[in-house]
């Protein structure tokens, strides 16, 4: 039995806009699933349907084997961490954490025990009697998580909980959430639009686009084998280079150059070729061109490496290069044909 199971879930807003169109997803007990996608892909709506904050047009949501479509959020045994934390501004940190337990009639001693335990884990014991406005962003974030933890729910739901923090704190809190989730082993659904956050947090990643699931898999599976051009361009930074090409004889015709295929078999006809920036190497030209001619436009120095932006024919291309190489105006880009990602030009689906 899965911890959370979505069956053919749909959400149509009054007015006809379809936010979620037929989602099937089973989330296993104790795993952290991250829903990721650009804004408007339906990820927040999906999470809010699991939480019971959004009505369900069609399909079912089950939590711990029980269909909860008609249950109030409070009856679903979930806890939620909101983007703006949603701490009750007039209550102390302690009262914020205790509120949900009190409403459930949890005995006082038990509430105290759980609040103490959660504040110890999150190191917020010193601010228990403060009001939220007296706390920093990171501290509020911890309190919001504390409020979820004390409930000891069947699942945590996170709705972009880090997007209000500055970049440095975001990375720090990301690590803490990961650790905490490991430690408590509570089933978690986490929504974000930040692919890096998604990659680093997820046991499994669900990439959403226009209300549908594009791909489900571990972060590495998705990075290595994106099933569509959408996933390929969304996951990974810098985004994968996607270039139109046609199969031509025993090579691959890319605008004004031909890439030898070295025995890799590809279907005939128009294709989209994907190349990760780090899979490409740049070589200086000596005599005859050997590889794809890239005209260098500009370079971004990242310290440990550099990103070289250039043009391949009329298409833009980015290459991750070591910092010590010398750069000419035009260089030869080479790639092992086995590392090419090949997609159908019309559907954008992965071939092979």
């Amino acid at each position: 039995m899965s911890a959370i199971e979505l069956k053919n879930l749909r959400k149509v807003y009054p007015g006809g806009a379809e936010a979620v169109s037929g989602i099937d997803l089973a989330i296993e007990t104790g795993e952290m699933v991250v829903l990721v996608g650009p804004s408007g892909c339906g990820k927040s709506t999906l999470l809010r349907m699991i939480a019971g904050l959004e009505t369900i047009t069609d399909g079912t949501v089950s939590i711990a084997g029980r269909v909860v479509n008609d249950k109030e959020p409070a009856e679903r045994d979930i806890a939620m961490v909101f983007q703006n934390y949603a701490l009750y501004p007039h209550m102390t940190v302690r009262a914020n954490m205790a509120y949900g337990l009190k409403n459930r009639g949890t005995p006082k001693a038990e509430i105290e025990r759980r609040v103490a335990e959660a504040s110890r884990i999150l190191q917020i014991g010193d601010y228990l009697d403060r009001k939220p406005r007296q706390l920093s962003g990171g501290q509020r974030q911890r309190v919001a998580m504390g409020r979820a933890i004390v409930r000891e729910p069947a699942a945590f739901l996170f709705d972009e909980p880090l997007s209000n923090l500055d970049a440095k704190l975001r990375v720090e809190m990301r690590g803490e959430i990961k650790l905490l989730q490991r430690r408590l082993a509570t089933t978690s659904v986490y929504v974000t639009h930040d692919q890096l956050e998604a990659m680093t947090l997820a046991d499994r990643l669900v990439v959403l686009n226009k209300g549908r699931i594009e791909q489900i898999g571990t972060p590495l599976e998705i990075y290595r084998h994106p099933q569509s051009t959408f996933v390929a361009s969304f996951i990974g930074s810098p985004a994968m280079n996607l270039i139109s090409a046609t199969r031509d004889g025993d090579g691959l015709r890319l605008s004004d150059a031909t890439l030898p295929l070295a025995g890799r078999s590809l279907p005939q006809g128009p294709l989209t070729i994907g190349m990760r920036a780090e899979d490409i190497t740049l070589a200086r030209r000596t005599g005859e061109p050997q590889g794809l001619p890239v005209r260098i436009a500009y370079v971004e120095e990242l310290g440990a490496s550099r990103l070289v932006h250039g043009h391949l024919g009329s298409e833009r291309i980015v290459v991750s290069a070591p910092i010590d190489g010398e750069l000419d105006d035009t260089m030869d880009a080479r790639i092992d044909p086995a590392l090419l990602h090949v997609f159908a030009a019309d559907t954008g689906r992965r071939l092979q």
Partner: protein
Amino acid sequence: MIENRPLLKLTAHLVLIAGVALVAFPVYLAIIASTHGPTDFMSGVIPLLPGPHAVENYRQVLASGVSTSGIPPISLMMTNSLIMALTIAIGKIVISLLSAFAIVYFRFPFRALAFWAIFVTLMLPVEVRIVPTFQVVANLGMLNSYAGLSIPLIASATATFLFRQFFLTVPDELMEAARVDGAGPMKFFFDILLPLSRTNIAALFVILFIYGWNQYLWPLLITTSSDYYTVVMGIKRMADVADSYPQWNTVMATVVLAMLPPVLVVICMQRLFVKGLVETEK
């Protein structure tokens, strides 16, 4: 001021002092008049300095009223005013909080209709529909009662809009978090929304208390028994007689007593008063 111009600064001070004097002078005279005996107004030259009769004048109006004009003790009228002002202020706040909560946190058939029905009351001040409103209150047997003095005035579009506006600024997530935490609508209302509205309620209370205390036409219409006279309307009855019997000392003592409570409220709660005034006009 950007430049340092002493002359300009001095002019500004003079303008302000003149303004303060203009504002204060009538009240000063009222206070002075309330400290003189009745005969001091026969001479034709109005006194400008305090007289010795303050205590006896105030004691007289507070305790026994003015029998010659059928005026009951002012203490009774002030109690009536207080009851009326408090009932109106609290009543308006309570029913407006509830309606604003319904309009913002629920979706239901005829929601827009309810909103507009409340809105329309803005266009129907009591002064323009005096006769038919009087008839309704008379038919309901509410003449000469505290209910009649206050209930017909406690509908409030302004207060409803103020709370609606405020509720719309309360983050949606607070209500969602409360629902996840197991709070139903009324629990959310009392545990979260009401405490968050404290400042708005207090500010509105100041404005509405003044509004209720200063009602004139309404108590004039629906009270015929002096047991229910309010102090603001009672003054008129006293002043009417003052033309023939010079009782200016007692009239002015009543004037001072009538403005004392609301003026004290404004001065002591100036910050809330300003907030209330500015927000209700939004």
